[in-house]
């Protein structure tokens, strides 16, 4: 069924109660051409673009829990493409362009709202970095501007721009096309669109072992039986090393908890996204009205989906100093997700040289959500053609042998 105003109107006669399931519940078949491990945003996007751009390919997504139950449903939903280096900017800008038409492409409202993203500067060095990054963005055709304190005061009246605070705001960069999207809708939209193109979405199906013979992937042993596969793409974020161990390889990633929290819902008070790397906090207001606040990375590594309270304390102090009006807002929920951090704060989108037919898309670390459509698109083409998509080529895993790293620590919003 194509969702449209006419369908909403017709469903009104039955009280909006008779909508069909968005995608069917299926059991695994005996064999597929491609299995995507991980039913988060990136995995579902990969499956969707594979099925759409390589018709006839039999594709399945296997997910150990439920669709979008991992980091896709745990992030702070920010979308931007203002990275520093050409390779990263091209990849994130490719994603941004896909975001701009995504609701139409998927026939599903992902509630993409280009409300602008501000990155604040608090020191002279911050301002030099901001200037450099804005210039780099403009050279790459990405919208970016430097905003003065006076202008910031005008655009975001509730932002504290006085000089009496510990780290006064000295200015900001702004990407007007940046914004937020509804994270659950992104997972559901991709799942529904992928299923429409014939992808089997198999939930509650955990991969337990990889069947590798003669340096080639043959299939996966899962909690729902053995599934034969010609090619396997792993998109499992914080658990990438666990999958890699099944293939007998190691990855240049380390898993860390990353925390976020939301407040009680309030009337509209903040119309844009404000991030500060120096005092460390970022905040936006969701359409529901709650403040969505992201904290820094917990410095220790691990897989426990919770972090330490002092990280929340540090972030909340920063937010309250930037927005004194929020000082008495009560927080509703706090949680942690497990992110896989790469040494250069850039992802790995790559075939695995040691195992033919095995591909990894991982290492997105603290900022993968914004890249969901672009990541899925270039990874789908990398798998479909067994050759890195031109935008994915710089993110080949071989860069950790050649040393051609892409140092994006400055543009990753979360300090590592």
């Amino acid at each position, binding site marked *: 069924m194509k969702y449209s105003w006419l369908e909403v109107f017709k469903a009104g006669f039955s009280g909006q109660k008779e909508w069909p399931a968005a995608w069917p519940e299926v059991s695994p078949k005996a064999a597929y051409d491609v299995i995507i491990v991980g039913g988060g945003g990136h995995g579902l996007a990969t499956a969707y673009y594979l099925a759409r751009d390589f018709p006839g390919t039999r594709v399945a997504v296997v997910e150990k829990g439920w669709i979008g139950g991992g980091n896709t449903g745990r992030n702070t939903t920010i979308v931007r493409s203002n990275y520093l280096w050409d390779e990263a900017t091209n990849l994130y800008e490719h994603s941004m362009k896909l975001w701009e038409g995504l609701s139409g492409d998927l026939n599903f409202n992902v509630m993409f709202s280009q409300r602008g993203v501000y990155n604040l500067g608090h020191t002279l060095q911050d301002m030099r970095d901001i200037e450099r990054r804005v210039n780099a963005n403009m050279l790459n055709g990405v919208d970016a501007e430097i905003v003065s304190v006076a202008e910031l005061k005008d655009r975001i009246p509730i932002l504290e721009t006085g000089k009496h605070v510990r780290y006064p705001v000295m200015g900001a960069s702004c990407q007007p096309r940046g914004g937020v999207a509804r994270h659950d809708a992104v997972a559901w939209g991709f799942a529904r669109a992928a299923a429409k193109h014939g992808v089997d979405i198999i939930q509650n199906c955990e991969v337990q072992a990889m069947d590798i013979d003669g340096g080639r992937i043959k299939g996966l042993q899962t909690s729902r039986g053995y599934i034969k596969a010609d090619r396997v793409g792993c998109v499992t974020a914080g*658990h990438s*090393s*666990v999958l890699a*161990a099944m293939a007998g390889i*190691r*990855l*240049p*990633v*380390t*898993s860390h908890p990353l925390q976020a929290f939301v407040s009680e819902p309030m009337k509209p008070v903040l119309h844009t996204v404000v991030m500060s790397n120096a005092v460390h906090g970022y905040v936006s207001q969701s359409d529901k009205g709650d403040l969505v606040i992201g904290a820094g990375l917990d*410095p*220790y*590594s*691990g*897989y*426990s989906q919770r972090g*330490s*309270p*002092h990280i929340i304390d540090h972030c909340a102090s920063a937010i309250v100093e930037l927005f004194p009006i929020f000082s008495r807002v009560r927080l509703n929920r706090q949680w942690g997700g497990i992110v*896989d951090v790469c*040494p250069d704060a850039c992802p790995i989108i790559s075939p695995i040289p040691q195992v033919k037919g095995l591909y990894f898309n991982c290492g997105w670390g603290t900022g993968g959500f914004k890249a969901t459509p672009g990541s899925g698109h270039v990874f789908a083409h990398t798998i479909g053609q067994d050759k890195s998509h031109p935008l994915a080529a710089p993110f080949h895993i071989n860069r*950790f*042998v*050649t*040393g051609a790293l892409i140092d994006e620590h400055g543009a990753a919003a979360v300090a590592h």
Partner: protein
Amino acid sequence: MFIIHCPYCGELRDEQEYRCAGEAFIQRPRLDCTDEQWGDYVFNRTNPKGRVLEQWAHSAGCRKLFVIERNNVTNEIYAVRTFESYKEQA
């Protein structure tokens, strides 16, 4: 929040005084190794789920490095030991 016993200071102190310095017992390869071996040593990590051996520094205390054996899913700490104690064991 971890509360960690420093084997050198002999005190239980808050996590904020410490810094996790990654997997313990990583061996540096010989300098005539291949680029692959060097890349593996510099960048690749086992990053296991469950029981791990990590090196931590008491960075705001005695600044010494030591080893924590812990479960990185439940955050349970099994043992805190000096590097010397592993040498003696071997």
